[in-house]
């Protein structure tokens, strides 16, 4: 009996890794340029479809497809930021919200047009069902891998932020855009790079999502909510907090599902609301909102 609960918590933690990957890009974009990207969920789904196309055209393993999909999404991110989103940034928060909402509608309908509304899945062969036994628990290799990737991605982003010239540029622009310009930083370019990095992470999240569950063009909104909840539970501007937020959300969902299968999503949202009520700035905030 206890083992079942331990199992639910462990599975939820691993699921949290995927949510943290959904959220990392959102967190990064908001942190660097205060842009709330409503299209983020649809970009995850777009990455999943791109992965599906690469896998079916080239016949390679989905994890190998990352080699193509990550740079494709990153390039798309850079162009999107420079051509569209940079124009919306300013003192007013509303224009970027409206434009990314519009982008979300465009992406969903574009995907519907190209790939139809039928649910799809990326086939990863034995990786989908392989499992290992640890201390009496049966753990899927895919969820374990997902969690490990989430750890690696967040560690990597953290490293970039605090130990590279690019990271200092991100933080300088985030701190004071005008002064950063006077230090020789071209903020349009820096924002482009931030979006490229964010969508590179999104590509990883999309492909892991596509291997884990079936997807269709309409599921972006749900992924966006999970991502938002993870970011806000963890606290704005703190990437390790975002991972913690993802884990809390994942655990709440699996425990909810354990009580009653219909409660999975509801339990996650309730956990989010409770944390928001107790700590409105999240658990480990770095930016005061």
């Amino acid at each position: 009996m206890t083992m079942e609960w331990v199992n639910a918590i462990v599975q939820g933690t691993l699921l949290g890794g995927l949510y943290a990957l959904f959220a990392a890009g959102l967190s990064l974009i908001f942190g660097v340029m205060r842009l709330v990207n409503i299209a983020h969920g649809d970009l995850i789904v777009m990455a999943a479809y791109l992965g599906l196309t690469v896998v079916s055209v080239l016949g390679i393993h989905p994890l190998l497809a990352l080699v193509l999909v990550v740079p494709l999404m990153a390039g798309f991110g850079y162009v999107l930021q420079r051509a569209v989103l940079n124009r919306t940034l300013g003192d007013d928060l509303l224009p970027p919200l409206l434009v990314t909402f519009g982008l979300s509608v465009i992406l969903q309908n574009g995907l519907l047009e190209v790939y139809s509304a039928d649910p799809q899945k990326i086939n990863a062969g034995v990786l989908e069902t392989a499992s290992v036994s640890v201390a009496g628990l049966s753990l899927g290799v895919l969820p374990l891998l997902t969690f490990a990737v989430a750890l690696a991605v967040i560690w990597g982003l953290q490293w970039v932020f605090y130990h590279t010239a690019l990271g200092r540029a991100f933080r300088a622009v985030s701190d004071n855009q005008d002064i950063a310009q006077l230090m020789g930083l071209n903020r349009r370019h820096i924002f482009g790079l931030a979006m490229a990095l964010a969508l590179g992470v999104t590509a990883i999240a999309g492909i892991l999502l596509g291997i884990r569950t079936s997807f269709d063009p309409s599921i972006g909104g749900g992924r966006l909510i999970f991502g938002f909840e993870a970011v806000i539970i963890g606290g704005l501007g703190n990437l390790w907090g975002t991972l913690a937020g993802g884990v809390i959300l994942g655990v709440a969902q699996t425990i909810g599902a354990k009580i009653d299968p219909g409660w999975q999503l509801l339990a996650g949202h309730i956990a989010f609301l409770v944390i928001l009520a107790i700590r409105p700035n999240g658990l480990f905030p770095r930016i005061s909102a």
Partner: protein
Amino acid sequence: MTAFLQIDRLTKSFGSISVADDLSYELRKGEALGVIGPNGAGKTSMFNLITGTLSPNSGRVLFDGHDVTRLGAAARCRAGMARSFQVPQPFSGMTVFENAMVAATQAAGLRGKAAERLCLEVLEQTQMLPKANALAGGLTLLERKRLELTRALCAKPKLLMLDEIAGGLTEGECRSLVQTIKDIHASGVSIIWIEHVVHALLAVVDRLIVIDFGKKIAEGEPKAIMASPQVQEIYLGIEADA
């Protein structure tokens, strides 16, 4: 002699308020130019026009032989301009060293060890080395002013623009800052310095211009300018209500 910086008939107004009115002057390479004038005369706006934060209604800015009037602030900075702010504006969530590194990597274009070496040298020169790992947000006023100077110097400027960097400092602090600025000038950096603390300014600059209502009203040898009746009147006015 060709001018290193040439301000050519710059005009900028916000509605009926003119911050630069047909403003022209030149700066020679290696020269230190002082700028004085009453509050609201358009001195800081003039810096904004030179660095590219503001764009003029008309007129040109020529820097190091190039017309930079259409260039953005980031490009002008990389071309060799750096400034300090009257109200210090550090990247407050970053350490003093990281603040310096932003300038050294982005503005001066240095990488890795070379950037670190420059930052350490400049931090030593500005006496900020002991504070290198402190968060910029927690510094005192003098330290913030020194950080402004540090960051500007890490950009390896050919032209350094100082905006009231001596204001609000004690006599002793001011003296040591003046010495630092003299050393920078002696190393060949051209300087434009806006300052109300006139004795600090006179210890460094070769030439003085006076600005009022966006217009240049006097220019010349510092002592002669300070003695002129026009400046006496303006400065007595300032001191009376300061």
